[in-house]
C-alpha cells in the first residue's frame, strides 16, 4: 500500500492542520506516515504545499514530481500550480474558490478560474470539484473547507484509512466546540464524491 498526497492552497486556509489529521488517522490504522511542509515565511498568505506519505517504511516525506496519487487543493490557482506533481490519471479534489494573488503582475494574462479548472482537467479525468464557498454558506462558517475536503478524500474508492479513524483524528485535533460543524462539513464532502449530483 502506498498513498502519496499533496495538500496545497494559500497560507491560512488550514492546510497544515488537515494534513496532520490525515496522518493521525493513518497512524490510528497502523500505517507509517511522513509529511513535510514549510512554516515561517510561507504562512503569510503565500503558496503552501504539504507533502504527505502514507505507506510502510517511508524514507522521506517528499514526493517526487509526477508521483502523487491525490492532490487536495484548497484553492484553484495553487492546485493548478502543483498539478505537475500528480501521477498520470491521478485524482484531484479541488475547492474551486479562486483567491486572486495580491501582487500586481500585470505582464501576465491572468487566467479565469474556469480556465484553471480546464488545465487541471487536461491532466486527469478524475477531478472532484468542491464548491467550498457554497458549503461554507450552507453551514454558516468560512473555516470548515478543510474538513469538507477531508470528507471527499475519505470517500474516494480504495481509501485505505477507515472513515471512523478520520473522525477520531478530527476529534483529537480540533477544538471541541467546532467538532460538530466540522463533522457536518466532513459529511457534505463525502456526499460530494459519493453522490456528486445532489450537492
Amino acid at each position, binding site marked *: 500500500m502506498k498513498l502519496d498526497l499533496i495538500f496545497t492552497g494559500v497560507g491560512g486556509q488550514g492546510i497544515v492542520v488537515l494534513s496532520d489529521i490525515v496522518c493521525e488517522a493513518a497512524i490510528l490504522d497502523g500505517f507509517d506516515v511522513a509529511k513535510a511542509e514549510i*512554516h515561517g515565511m510561507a504562512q503569510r498568505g503565500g503558496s503552501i504545499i504539504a507533502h504527505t506519505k502514507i505507506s510502510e517504511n517511508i524514507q522521506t516525506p517528499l514526493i517526487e514530481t509526477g508521483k502523487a496519487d491525490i492532490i487536495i487543493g484548497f484553492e484553484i490557482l495553487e492546485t493548478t500550480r502543483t498539478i505537475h506533481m500528480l501521477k498520470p490519471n491521478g485524482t484531484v479534489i479541488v475547492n474551486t474558490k479562486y483567491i486572486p494573488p495580491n501582487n500586481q503582475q500585470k505582464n501576465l494574462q491572468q487566467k479565469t478560474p474556469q480556465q484553471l479548472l480546464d488545465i487541471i482537467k487536461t491532466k486527469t479525468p478524475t477531478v472532484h470539484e468542491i464548491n467550498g464557498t457554497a458549503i461554507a454558506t450552507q453551514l454558516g462558517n468560512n473555516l470548515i473547507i478543510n474538513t469538507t475536503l477531508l470528507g471527499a478524500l475519505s470517500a474516494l474508492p480504495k481509501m485505505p484509512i477507515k472513515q471512523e479513524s478520520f473522525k477520531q483524528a478530527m476529534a483529537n485535533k480540533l477544538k471541541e466546540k467546532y467538532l460538530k460543524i466540522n463533522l457536518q462539513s466532513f459529511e457534505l464532502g463525502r456526499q460530494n464524491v459519493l453522490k456528486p449530483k445532489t450537492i
Partner: protein
Amino acid sequence: MSKITINKPDSFVLYNGDEAVARGAVEADIKVAAAYPGTPSTEILETLSKAAKTLGFYAEWSVNEIISTTVAAGAAMTGARAIVSMKHVGLNVASDAIMTLAYTGIEGGLVIVVCDDPKLHSSQNEQDTRYFAVHSKLPLLDAGNPQEALNMTREAFNISEQLKLPIILRLTTRVAHGKAKVQIGQLQKLYRNIAFDKNGSRWVMIPSNAIRQHKILEEKIVQAKQIAENSQFNQIEDNNADIGIIGSGVGYYYARSVLDTSKFSWLKLGFVHPFPSNLVKIFATKVKQIIVIEELRPYIEENLQRLKLDVTGKTQLELGEIGEYTPDSVREAFAKLNLTKTNPPTAIIKDLPSRPPNLCPGCTHRAFYYALNSTYQHIECDNNKCIKCGTCAQTCALEKEKTTDKNKSRIKIHNKTTTITVCKACINPTCTTSCPQNALTKSTQTGTIHVDENKCIGCKTCLQNCPHNAINIDTDKNKAIICDTCQGNPQCVKKCPKHALTLVGRSNDKIVTGDIGCYSLGVLPPLNTMQTCLCMGGGISQAAGMIHAGVKDKIFTVLGDSTFFHAGISALLNISYNKANICVIILDNRITAMTGHQPTPASGKTAMGENAKIVNIHEITKSVGIDKIITVDPYNIKDTINAIQKTLTYNEPCVIISQRPCPLLLTQHNPPREITNKCGNCGVCTTNFGCPAITQTQNNKTEIDQTLCNGCGVCETICPHQAITRRKQQQ
C-alpha cells in the same frame, strides 16, 4: 495537553523534528531549556515550554542566542541537564560563548540544537553547522528524520556527560518541519544533587587556566572520536555491493528512496564530528566505489579525500552546495550515473502569477510603511482614466488662488497633447537650483517646492528647467505657482470625477535600513520600503556607518520589539553616544510575530505562561541617551506621517516607537470594511497600500474579501473618496 508528556513508552506519535527533540530532552530529564525563536528551530522551545510545568523543569525565551546559551550553560555547570536551541544564524550570536564553553566543559549534559536552513526557506544565509563543529571542536550529531532527532537528543545527553562537553545536534529545515511517526521512549527521572563547584578553576578562562583546558579539550576530542567510531548513529548496511553510498541528513534518505537499496552498500553517518575515519576505512574496503550524498558543503567528501579515498561526490553528481536536495534532484543525479531511471517528464504549468508571502491583513507594519512611503508625496494622474474635463484645474484655482480662472491652477492641462502635468516633487529638483533669485526651496519635511513670493520675479527660468513641465506662472502676480499637495490633503484628488488623480509617495526617496522580522516583508512590492537586511539589529549600525561615511540623506532604520531587545539596544546606545543622526523606528507589536508569536519582554508573559513586568521601550530609549522620542499608533496614518516629518527637522539621533499589538493577537475584531459605489478604482488601497484582503478584480473593480479583512480600518482612512465603510451588521 502537551504532545511530549505522554507516558506510554514505545508507542507511536506524530512529531515533527523539533517536537521530537523536545521529547528527547524530556526523556533525558532536562532541568533547564532556553532559546530565542528562529525558524525552523522555534517549535523546540515552544513544545518544551508547554510541558515545563507538568514535568517540573524550567523553560525560557531568552532575549538572544548568546543569553540562552549561557543560561543553559550555567545550568549544566551545576550538574543539571540543559538544552538550548537556535537557528543556524543564531549560532553566530552564541558562538562567543560556545567557543570557550568547549574549553570549560560542563558537568550536566548540555545539548546545543542548531537548525540549518538549506534553500533559505526563511533565513539570510545557508551556513553549514558541521563546519562550526570543526571550528569549535565540539562533537556533532546530524539528524536525518524526526525519529533520529529524538534518539540523538536523548543519547546526546549521555555523550555530553561522558565527555563533559556540550554536544551540537544539527537538524535541517526538512527534518525540523517534517513530521513522521515516531516511537517514543521512557520519561526518566535522575534526582540529581544540583550544586556549583566554587573551587573549579576550569570555569575561569584566564590564559593560564585556558591553555590547560585547551589541552583537555584535545584529549576529549580523541575520546569523542572513539565514541563516534562505535556510535549507533553510524551504521553500515553491507549488501555485498560494488558501490557504497555514504550520506548524512535528508540526502541519505533521498538516495535510499530513489535507488534499489539492495543493490548498494550503505553507510549512514549521524555522529559526523569528530569524523569516524576508521569506520569509513572499513566501509571502503567492502566496496569498489564510494558515492557521498550530503546537502550544503562537502564535509564528508573532504574527510574522505583527507583519508586518500577516491570519492564520487558533488562534482560528479552535479549536485552543488547551493539550496536543498530533493528526491527529484537526487534521482536525476544518480540517473546520470546510470544507477537509476529518470522519471517521465511532466510539464510545469507556466505563466501563473506567483503568490509570495505578504504582510497579513491589518498588519501594523504595513500601516507604518505606508506612512513612511508617504513622507514626501506628490500628485500623479492616470492618463488612461483622465478625460481632460478640467475639474482639477478649476478646483485648484479656486482653492489656492480664490478664482475661477483655471489658468491659475497648479495643475496644467496641455490641450495639444491632452495630458496633465503637476509637480512631482523631484528628489533632486532642477527648479530650485536653476532659480536666479533663490526663490524656490524644497521642504525638508514634505518634499514639496515652496515659492518665496518676495523673491520670485516671474522670470520663468524654473519653468524652462522643469523636466515635467509642471510649473505654472500666475500672470497677474507674475509669480511661479507650484503644487504643494494642499499640505497632504489635495482637493483636486477628491473632486476628480474619474478618480484619475492620486496622492502618492515614493519608497526610493530616502534610505531605510532594516533587519529581520515580519517587517522584512516590507521589502516586497508594493511597499518596497526596506533596503537592507543583514543580521539582527544590523540596520541601526549600518545606517550609522553610512552617515559617518558621508551620506547626506536622512536615514531611517526599522526593527521590531523582539529584535530591539535581541540586538537593538546596544546599537541604539552606540549611535546615541557616537552621535549618528538617524531616525530609529521601533515597530513594537508586543510579540515575536514572524516565528509564530513567542512573547518578548514587551508582552507581559513568560514562556511558561507566567505574568511578567513589561519592559518599557520608551524608558530604555530615553536611558541610552535619546532625547527625541515620538510614540505613534501606526493605524493613525496622518499622525504617523506628521511624526516622521517632524523627525526630519532633528539634528540628532531620534526614535519613533510605532506601538500597536500584532492584530493576530486579538480575539475580537472590528467589523470588516466594504467598498461602496463611490469607489472609482483609483488604486490607493490596492496598488500603494497593498492589503491582501483588497483586490482589483479582472473587470477593474475593487473588492474587499470579507473573510480576510479583519476590520483594522486603515484603508478607510487612506481612501481619498470615502469609498470604504464598515460593513453594516446584518439584521
